[in-house]
């Protein structure tokens, strides 16, 4: 290459590099920020700028004189980044979205390995021991607290802690919702109690290999009672009831069973929840109460043993029946006669089938009720002793009468879901 050409090439390269440097170093680039002191935190009101951040000034070099460029706001220091965003009137909500998303991504790399149970190995077929699991969850919680502290520092807001799920098939989302509606100052305490309970409960199941031995039942009950006592120390009775309404299987089942036809008011639901809880407590006590044998039976005498067991079962059935009657009386008093009747009907599968049939074929409610009463009257007739011929005749009668009430198409639809016939007993 000729020297002149080389000089021209080198000169052009120098110009190019100069232009690149000028572009990179143009105004708007925030300098490396030093870590500010952790100052007084904000009130937590999302519309307030945390005082620690109010004191920071937007990068003067970033003062926009020309249309916006992202480089004006970008900074490797997050405090400066936030200040820069505020200086161009970025909405607080958007700032929060950006910072929280980034903090979550940053912590995900450390949190994710702690969220999953390790894969089983030859040395540890279960994946981890109970102690290892507790340690893993402890480390995860420490990271969550650290993350919350970072967000608090940057934005002046408290993020709710992610829930630490233990094993088992619990409705963890329902608990998250319940924690969310608790008074803010009690949320952490309740969450920690509940998570500790899950861990202990799972450890108990592992200890007894999921077998419901009397020892397991006793220890499990003790654990439950202990949780209730601890929760009652943190929450007021109405708060505790609200918490139970969001988290207990009782409330969930009740909610599902009442939703379609009964449609309770809040007050009715609360009354029914209390009655149902009372009933379940009574049944729980029965299952853990020691059975009283009238006379000791020779274990080798199988027939006597069978009779004794039958007697015990009968006594248990009677106690259950008594608890059920008590609950029903309580419901009748709380709801009144008319609503109680509606409630009972709403729990009957036959009514559900007929009500849906009514909706499907556009039948009036009166027709549905008429068919329901007819079906009930046939269902309450004695069953096992009826001879096959009588049974067929009864079914024919019911079918004819139902067809007269429901019409041919709806009656056929009803028979279709009952295996081609109408049900008696």
């Amino acid at each position, binding site marked *: 290459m000729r*020297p002149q050409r080389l000089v021209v090439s*080198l000169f052009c*390269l*120098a110009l190019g*590099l100069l232009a690149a440097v000028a572009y*990179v170093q143009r105004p708007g*680039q925030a300098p*490396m920020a030093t*870590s500010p002191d952790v100052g007084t935190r904000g*009130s*937590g009101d999302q519309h307030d700028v945390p005082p620690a951040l109010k004191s920071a000034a937007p990068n003067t070099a970033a003062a926009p*004189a*020309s*249309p*916006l*460029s*992202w480089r004006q706001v*970008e900074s490797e*220091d*997050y405090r400066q*980044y936030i200040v820069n*965003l505020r200086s*161009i*009137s*970025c909405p607080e909500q*958007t700032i929060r979205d*950006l910072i929280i*998303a*980034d*903090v979550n991504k*940053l912590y995900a790399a450390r949190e994710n390995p702690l969220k999953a149970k390790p894969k089983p190995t030859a040395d540890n077929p279960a994946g981890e021991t109970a102690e290892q699991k507790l340690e893993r969850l402890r480390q995860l919680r*420490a990271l969550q*607290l650290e993350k919350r*502290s*970072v967000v608090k*520092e940057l934005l002046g807001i*408290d993020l*709710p*802690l992610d829930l630490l799920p233990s094993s088992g098939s619990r409705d963890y989302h329902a608990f998250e919702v319940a924690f969310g509606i608790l008074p*803010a*100052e009690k*949320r*952490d305490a309740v969450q920690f109690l509940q998570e500790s309970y899950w861990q202990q409960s799972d450890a108990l199941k592992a200890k007894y290999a999921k077998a419901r031995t009397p020892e397991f039942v006793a220890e499990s009950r003790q654990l439950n009672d202990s949780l209730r006592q601890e929760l009652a120390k943190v929450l007021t009775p109405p708060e505790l009831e609200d918490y139970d309404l*969001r988290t207990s299987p009782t409330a969930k089942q009740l*909610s*599902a069973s009442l939703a*379609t036809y009964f449609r309770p*008011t809040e007050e*009715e*639901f*609360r009354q029914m929840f209390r009655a149902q809880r009372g009933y379940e407590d009574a049944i729980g006590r029965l299952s853990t109460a020691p059975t009283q044998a009238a006379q000791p039976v020779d274990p080798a005498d199988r*027939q006597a043993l069978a009779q004794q067991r039958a007697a015990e079962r009968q006594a248990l059935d009677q106690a259950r029946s008594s608890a059920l009657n008590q609950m029903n009386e309580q419901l009748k008093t709380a709801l009144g006669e008319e609503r109680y009747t509606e409630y009972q009907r709403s729990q009957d599968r036959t009514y559900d089938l007929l009500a849906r049939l009514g*909706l*499907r*074929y556009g039948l009036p409610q009166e027709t549905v009720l008429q068919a329901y009463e007819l079906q009930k009257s046939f269902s309450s007739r004695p069953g096992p002793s009826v001879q096959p011929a009588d049974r067929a005749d009864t079914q024919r009668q019911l079918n004819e009468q139902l067809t007269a009430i429901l019409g041919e198409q709806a009656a056929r*639809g009803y*028979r279709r*879901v009952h*295996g*081609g016939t109408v049900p008696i007993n």
Partner: protein
Amino acid sequence: MQKIIFGLVGLNLVLAGYLAVALAQQTSKRKGLAKAVASVASPTVTNAAATARPKPSLPVNSPSSADATTWAALASPDLRKYAANLRRIGCPEETIQEIMLAEANRLYGARERALKVRPDDVAPWEEAAQHDRRGAESKLRQLLAEKRSLLKELTGVDAGINVPSRLAGRDVETFEGAFGVLPESKRDQVRAIQENYWAQSDDIKQRTLGYLEPEDREAFLRIKTERRDALAKVLTPTELQDYEMKTSATAPALRSRLEGFDVTDEEFRKVFDFMQPLDEQYSLSRKNPDPVNQEFTAARNQAEKDLQEHIHQVLGDERYAEYQRTRDPVYRTLRQVGSEAGVPQESILQAYQAQQQMQEESRRLLQDPNLTQEQRVQRLQDMRTQAEQRMQQLFGDKGAQILERLPGSRMAERYGLPATRVEVNPNPGVDNSVPANPP
């Protein structure tokens, strides 16, 4: 000249070095955040202060009046415009994704909450009726599909949106898993086909409420066929088969039928391919949907026979016989406990035959009206003794243990009969439990 050349080389080196340092200073925000994290992280527990929910409104701005030097010049109720504005000023794609996801969540939030499907949005006493809830879940699924599609358009990536694990009776997670393993280029199309099918299927279910007339079944069959044909145009035969085996109701039903039988992957696929269209037409994996229709019931029975014949053909005589035995829980238990005890398969088969004979005899005894309860108990007791002897012959010392582990003793004890397994049901699916007062 040489001096000029050296001078220019030196200048270029200096400029290149300076540029490298300047670029290095613009490292990602993450590094800066990590520093910030290190400076503020504290492991102590603090009391939570009130955390307000995100405001459901978009940052509204009229671009014409906006100050070109503020965020107002970027934000727009039209998210497409908002994203384009951010891109124009050099906002990194990752940051645009974060902003768009948050904005889309706010944009759709009110409509999602109004459906009252998520537990966050509904008090226990406000839960909707089952059929209304199903309809609301269907609408939520469609809304989420719309949101996902919008985000894909805005950001070019499939942003993770929060979807409940079950919606309108379907396991969303299973489908998400199946979409996830499809080639990326086909994923959206398959999603759209599946969503279209779900929407039509939900309409039929909402209208019929479980009471299907023949024309409703035909409508179901039509949309299922359309779905499958549409998928076949997008996916290769292998991809389609894999997708269907992961998501259809037929696959778990077939697995259930083959429980305890050691089927190869190839055999399973062959039977699955044959069974799926029949299952879609005649609901072979569920109960008969139209028992009042004799013509349909006859065709359904024929379909079941055809399926059995096909299974026979795929497995061959010997394996088919083994498959039939594995449908009996008694055989499955015998085989399991026998193999654990190291008993040869031949002895297990002999024990099973003896067990079947004993069941047949016990059923006859229980239905014999000429016997008293005492005689019945005695005869059954004798049978148990014989069974124990036979098991001992076949299994040696472990015979009694194996007999103990077979199902059925509890039912016998309940009716005061000896703890024998004679009443075990030889035909799975048919209830032959011992009546309290045998005729």
